[in-house]
């Protein structure tokens, strides 16, 4: 494991944690609030949207990290995965 990989793992793991805790906080807040305010459910669904966005975010983080390391082969691979995920997103909206 090179030192670069260690740094890359730190960036990626931060992205994952940030997404996980933000989504969890929004969902829990929303679940509690929905008993006192009608818009509480909206906060919970915002949390689910954050959750849905985290996989795309982790690909972008990995892609950025590969570019930073000048590992263009894997930057291209990540970009390809991102393209398929975004295609699914746009097909999903239209479905």
């Amino acid at each position, binding site marked *: 494991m090179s030192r670069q990989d260690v740094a890359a793992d730190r960036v990626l793991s931060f992205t994952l944690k940030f997404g996980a805790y933000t989504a969890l906080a929004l969902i829990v807040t929303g679940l509690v609030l929905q008993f006192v305010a009608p818009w509480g459910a909206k906060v919970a669904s915002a949390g689910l949207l954050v959750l849905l966005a*985290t996989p795309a975010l982790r690909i972008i983080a990995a892609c950025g990290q590969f570019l930073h390391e000048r590992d263009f082969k894997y930057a291209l691979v990540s970009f390809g995965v991102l393209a398929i995920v975004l295609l699914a997103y746009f097909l999903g909206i239209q479905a």
Partner: protein
Amino acid sequence: MTLAVLLLLIVTGFCAGGFGALAGVGGGIIVTPMLAIYFGLPMHQAIGVTLLCVIATSTATSALYVERHVTDVRLGMTLELATTVGALIAALVAHSINRRTLAVLFACFLLYSSGSMMKKAWTSRNAKREETIPDYTPQNYPVGLAASFIAGGFSGLLGIGGGPIKVPVMFLFMKVPLRAAAATSNFMIGVTAATSAYVYWGRGNVRIDIAAPLVAGVFAGSLLGARISSKVRAFYILILVIGVTGWFAVQMIYKLLTGGFQ
């Protein structure tokens, strides 16, 4: 929704996430049958909600495994090229498959998973944990990519992560150490599930009122499970999960034979 149902969903999610992270299986094999059998959700909706739980498990556990350098991000990213294509195609097709067929496929998958977990329990009963991961270079990418495509397809169709397909292939054919294979599969299932979740969400098959409490439980359960996984012996948890999975399989088959899942 009553408070009791809400709490029940949170607890279900917590158990699925916790046991999933400890036994190294996605929560999907627990959540989908629970929703379809006991909460009476149509299969497509049960699967749509489960996909969100799979993303939650993957995000929570990967945060830890990536930090501990167990996850092979390059390998995962490469195989995701195939899982996402499989997941996208399957999610688009799933819409036109009827509920009973989906339930039959799911019951088969439950039986396969119990079998594969039994094998894992048998081989791991006396094995010592791999403390450090030996150096390796993944081999045989064509086989890995083909298996990933199929795993992605099952994920889009049934809402499960596809770990029981990918992990053995990575271990046996690609010569990746078991712990690295499991962590890498965990990393991948989030991206795979998201691909099909977008399609299910767009078609209105993600019930937000059910998904929100479940996902909250799954997050808490898998964060805790991943954290204590190195201190707990997986053997007994595996036996428990095999029992639960087997029970769900029997229940689903019974419900199918008595004309359920219409």
